């Protein structure tokens, strides 16, 4: 008799512990997209990504430079911008593995800016990039590749161990959000920035940036670029290297990096497009197309860039999906929301 009660008690223990901890994790792990939109991007990518044909990977140069809605409206390209703040190449590699697991993108556009980093940079950015990904071998290797000092693998397996101390800053909104369906913050990964803050000299330049002391590209970054190239070849996808048309003292693109990236792209036989050189062709103008004085593009800049880059994507076989009824409906909803948010500012 006592044996049964002990077994029942053990079950109660496990159930209660599991219930309380998962409830705690749901509550305490940041899940308010409005509080920190960039942190929600990867979570949305994992929920939304399915059979898109084009996938963009990279940091804020990717998820703020090209408007996916324009790509759809003008070319019918069904694209997803899988970007996160300061996304390093080993993060992108894990995300690409997830993308190939759930879908079959035919074109992969990779941001070139991350080639400069060869060391893990920042715990907060690691969390934003990796917490959203479902548990998999790819995620584990990405975590161990990007952990900075003081981080532990366990806190990625159980995020509650990392965010448990948010208990005394919880708000009622954290609780109600649990009940509501997840609200998308981005448009297929594109995060709209509607502000306008002109840059005086109208054109991107990195005058005033820190003189370059370590010209070589990140060694580990190049390794992971090769891995990504191999993965794309295995999945029959076309990999394109892209430098967004932005350059500033805070995020400089030095000539040495440009030269090495071109050489690298040639070596790996990957097409490389530096939109900085096509700045005028795209019709960009830093008095209206940037929201932070020349570091990132706002929605107008993103639409112009998307208009320009869409053609290139078509050359690489990005199909026009506007004949697909279901996609039309989905995109119609997103486009309406997109226009609505855009109008609020104009």
């Amino acid at each position, binding site marked *: 008799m006592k044996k049964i009660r002990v077994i029942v008690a053990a079950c109660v223990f496990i159930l209660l512990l599991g219930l309380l901890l998962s409830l705690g994790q749901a509550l305490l792990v940041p899940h308010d997209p409005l509080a920190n939109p*960039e942190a929600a991007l990867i979570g949305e990518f994992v929920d939304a990504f399915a059979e898109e044909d084009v996938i963009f990977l990279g940091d804020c140069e990717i998820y703020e430079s090209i408007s996916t809605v324009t790509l759809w409206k003008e070319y019918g390209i069904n694209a997803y911008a899988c970007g996160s*703040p300061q996304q390093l190449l080993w993060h992108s590699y894990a995300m690409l593995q997830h993308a190939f697991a759930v879908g079959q993108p035919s074109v992969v556009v990779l941001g070139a800016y991350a080639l400069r980093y060869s060391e893990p940079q920042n715990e*907060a*950015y690691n969390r934003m990039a990796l917490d959203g990904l479902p548990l998999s071998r790819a995620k584990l290797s990405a975590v161990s590749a990007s952990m900075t000092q003081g981080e532990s693998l366990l806190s990625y397996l159980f995020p509650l161990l990392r965010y448990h101390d948010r208990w005394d800053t919880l708000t009622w909104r954290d609780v109600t959000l649990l009940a509501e369906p997840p609200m998308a913050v981005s448009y297929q990964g594109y995060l709209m920035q509607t502000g306008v803050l002109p840059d005086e000299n109208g054109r991107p330049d990195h005058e*005033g940036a*820190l*003189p370059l*002391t370590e010209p070589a590209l990140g060694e580990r970054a190049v390794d992971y670029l090769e891995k990504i190239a191999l993965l794309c070849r295995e999945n029959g996808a076309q990999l394109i290297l892209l430098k967004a048309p932005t350059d500033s003292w*805070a995020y400089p693109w030095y000539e040495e990096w440009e030269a090495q990236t071109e050489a690298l792209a040639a070596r790996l036989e990957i097409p490389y497009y530096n939109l900085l050189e096509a700045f005028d062709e795209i019709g960009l103008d830093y008095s209206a197309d940037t929201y*932070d004085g020349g570091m990132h593009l706002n929605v107008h800049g993103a639409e112009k860039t998307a208009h320009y880059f869409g053609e290139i994507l078509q050359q690489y076989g990005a199909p026009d999906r506007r004949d697909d009824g279901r996609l039309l409906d989905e995109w119609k909803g997103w486009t309406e929301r997109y226009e609505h948010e855009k109008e609020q500012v104009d």
Partner: protein
Amino acid sequence: MSMKKNRSIKCMTVVLAVMMGLAAALCACGPSEAPDAPVGERAVLSLPFRGTEIAAGDAVEPLLGALGDDYTMQEAASCAGIGKDYVYTYPSLRLYVFAPEGGEAIVTSVCYTDDGAAIKGVTIGGAADAAVAALGEPDEQTESKLVYRDETSVLTLSLRDGIVTAIVLSEK
């Protein structure tokens, strides 16, 4: 006699134990795990400017007070609002600063912009070997740069055909 011999053996064991105890004590204080001396035994690296020594990691407010307010400041929000980056441009010096969200602003890098300032007489445009003579043996020397390191920061002098083109001190 046997009592005497027996006793001496006992004494021996105790003395041996004592020796072992002291030996362990001494070797325990052998190469203790204290961090080994910083590379190059060099004091903390810093760039002098207007009589103030600027090192990577310094707090910014007192520095700006000391250097004067004839600077222009540019600001950039880091992605996802985890902090702000600033650059303060003085005549012939530039300060790069990062202020984490709700934290104290610290200097991440500092560099000379022209030959208006010097470290131990070494200025931009000066000869490389003159720099080595003034600053001492670098930790790393190639024909494109001289590198000096201390525990927390790295001083780099970029070179082109034997002439110093940039002097940059930044956090490791």
